[in-house]
């Protein structure tokens, strides 16, 4: 065994120490971990749609972020979180333009954050929300502001802005970065589920609705119009009139 490999084994064991400290904050960790299952339920409900590949990749990236955050690689964790949000929201944008999705799959088009967040036609623009789930259109500007701010905050880690160098220089646990990452993860999921709700909820069949009710209500139960979608009495009434 070379000196070099010894160095990396030492890093691994230090990483393990950080992991132990991270897992001691069980509540934050378990919650962020449970988001993976929430997203998988959405993926299952969308299994026949072409853009689901992108959503699935976003969940992979989210898991990388979670692992990085747990093992003390905070900068990488924030970068992964940004990529998760970008991929997840791109899946929603491409769902309404299969042509772009196909070009992206052929490597002829990039994912553009500017297009995702565009105030006129992006997935959180009032126009877009109005087209798919009109009752949520008034909430759109607030969620757009969250997405824009999150992206900027995570980008600061990617670009190495001055304020992001307060993280420990050595591989060690940092309570501030750990808590900050989990807060941002919660915000990313909030925005992602809002976009997924806008795009898919009104078109879901009762069985699909039943499958995603848990995560949707957990993340968006504060929105009256979302609760109404899952209101059994409302649903039965509308089915009865058809």
């Amino acid at each position: 065994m070379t000196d070099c490999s010894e160095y990396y084994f030492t890093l691994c064991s230090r990483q393990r120490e950080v992991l132990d400290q991270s897992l001691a904050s069980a509540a934050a960790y378990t919650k962020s971990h449970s988001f993976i299952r929430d997203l998988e339920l959405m993926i299952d409900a969308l299994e026949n749609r072409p853009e689901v590949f992108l959503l699935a990749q976003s969940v992979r990236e989210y898991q990388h972020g979670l692992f990085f955050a747990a093992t003390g690689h905070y900068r990488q964790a924030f970068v992964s979180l940004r990529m998760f949000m970008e991929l997840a929201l791109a899946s929603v944008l491409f769902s309404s333009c299969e042509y772009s999705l196909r070009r992206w799959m052929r490597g002829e088009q990039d994912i553009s954050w500017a297009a995702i967040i565009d105030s006129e036609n992006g997935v959180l623009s009032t126009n877009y929300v109005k087209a798919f789930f009109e009752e949520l259109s008034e909430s759109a500007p607030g969620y757009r502001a969250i997405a824009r701010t999150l992206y900027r905050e995570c980008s600061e880690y990617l670009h190495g802005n001055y304020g992001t160098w307060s993280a420990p220089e050595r591989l060690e646990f940092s309570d501030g970065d750990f808590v900050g990452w989990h807060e941002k993860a919660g915000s990313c999921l909030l925005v992602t589920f809002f976009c997924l709700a806008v795009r898919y909820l009104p078109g879901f069949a009762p069985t699909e609705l039943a499958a995603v009710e848990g995560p949707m209500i957990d993340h968006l139960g504060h929105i009256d119009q979302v609760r109404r979608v899952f209101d059994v009495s409302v649903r039965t009434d509308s089915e009865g009139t058809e």
Partner: protein
Amino acid sequence: MSELLYRTEDIRLEEVLGLFVESSEDRAALNALKSATPTIIVGSRGVGKSFLLRVAEVELGQELSNRQVFPVYVSFSRSSLLQTADPAQFLNWTLSRLSSRVVRALTQAGYIGGMPRSVSILSGGAPSLHLLGSGEETTRIEEIATAYEESWKSPGGIVDHTGLPTVEAFRDAIEDICSACGFRRMAFLFDEAAHVFLPQQQRDFFTLFRDLRSPHITCNAAVYPGVTAYGDAFQPAHDATFIDVNRDILADDYVQNMREIVERQADSTLLSNIARNGQNFALLAYAASGNPRILLKTVGLTPRMSSSEINEVIREYYRTEIWAEHSTLCEKYPGHRDVIDWGRKFIEEDVLPELKKKNDEYLSSDRNSTCFFWMSRDAPQIVYEALRVLHYTGIVSENSVGIKASRSEIGTRYAVNLGCLFALEPTPTASAFAVAKSLTPKRMTEYGSGHSAYGPLVTSVPAYQETNGAELLRVQMEKPSEVLDITLWQKDKLRELNLLTVGAVLGASETNLKEARYVGDKRARSMRNAAIAAVFEYLSG
């Protein structure tokens, strides 16, 4: 959580447009400020007057090539420091300040190179105009302004103002500059224009405002409500358009508009908490009654936006803190004590309980709610003085003048700060939203010309005396720096530097401030600006 800035002075001019959330009322006020008609914007502390003037300045600057209107922003917040024995001190100081601001603004905009001789009139005859751009040298005029501003250190002295232009010479100089630079006119934007409790300064200011009027000058100003001493020359109805900058809490997009103000500064965690607790945020927005500074302060106290946080803040802030500023006025202006104290008693013991009683009754029978009261125009003048102070601190706002009430009596309708009304609810998050959502100005409590509540005030108040500025200022300078309305972090830094009194903060240089940990050039500048703005605002009321 990110620190929310709630003072315009903390915000760099380049960032002003990025933080500006435009309402239709704001746009109307801006259009008026940019027009050729002299405009005076009126509003309580923290409603965004300075911010609007700054936005007007930036927009006029950007539109210079189309409109040919050159903006000059001048703050008169230092007027409370003038303590010479010269009866014309305010006029002289104002002209010197104005002249130096014009020269600086022209220099910064790059016009100074091709300047006509008229600029030397504004700069006090200083021939060395090439020095003006360096930022290091001062002109004769600036020396005069500084001498007046430092007169608080030795009250009663005389400032040599040789070299200062007369109003006529000033007007002529502006005309020459306009024709040389191709400007159609200059737009002056006077901030903190007239000291509320110094009527003589108000009279002097409005006289100057009138005298400066020319085809090449448009004067605009921001004043607090309650500035009413216009002097003989200025006719309010003819010489300026008055615009009240209060946000309309009944507008459909009110909450959305207030949320955008927070969105421009908040981090993603706070924004997510606002999204998850939309109704709690709406309650805070209504409680702030259209005042962005109060909103940003209270949002800073409720980072989770939870119901328990909101209830606590509404109880604490609107039952005690909002009144603290009002009651501090008693200490600063002992001559007004009876009027100020009566105003608080009137609102707390008469107006608010009566509105609460009405709302409980209305809402239990699905009718509209109220936060309005009406006062007969024949009510005693002294009662109106008390309302003027309440308006100034933002406890009440004027909703409409010349309203007919029962028995065809005419009077003014006021809205009381909604936060104060919510604070009477046992659990504001459970019941106050219904009050906010059902408001109508059609319902109001009426206070006729001889209402019994006026009794104690009418019998106790002696004749008014104008305030003695010098004594007042000395007392204020000895106050602890804790009284200043700056962020907790800024207060910590002042303590760290041993700047413990208002006078010490005022006398500190940026170099002093940079001695604090984590304070560099930029922060020292912004802290000093914030501290000094707070000092002046404290002194001016």
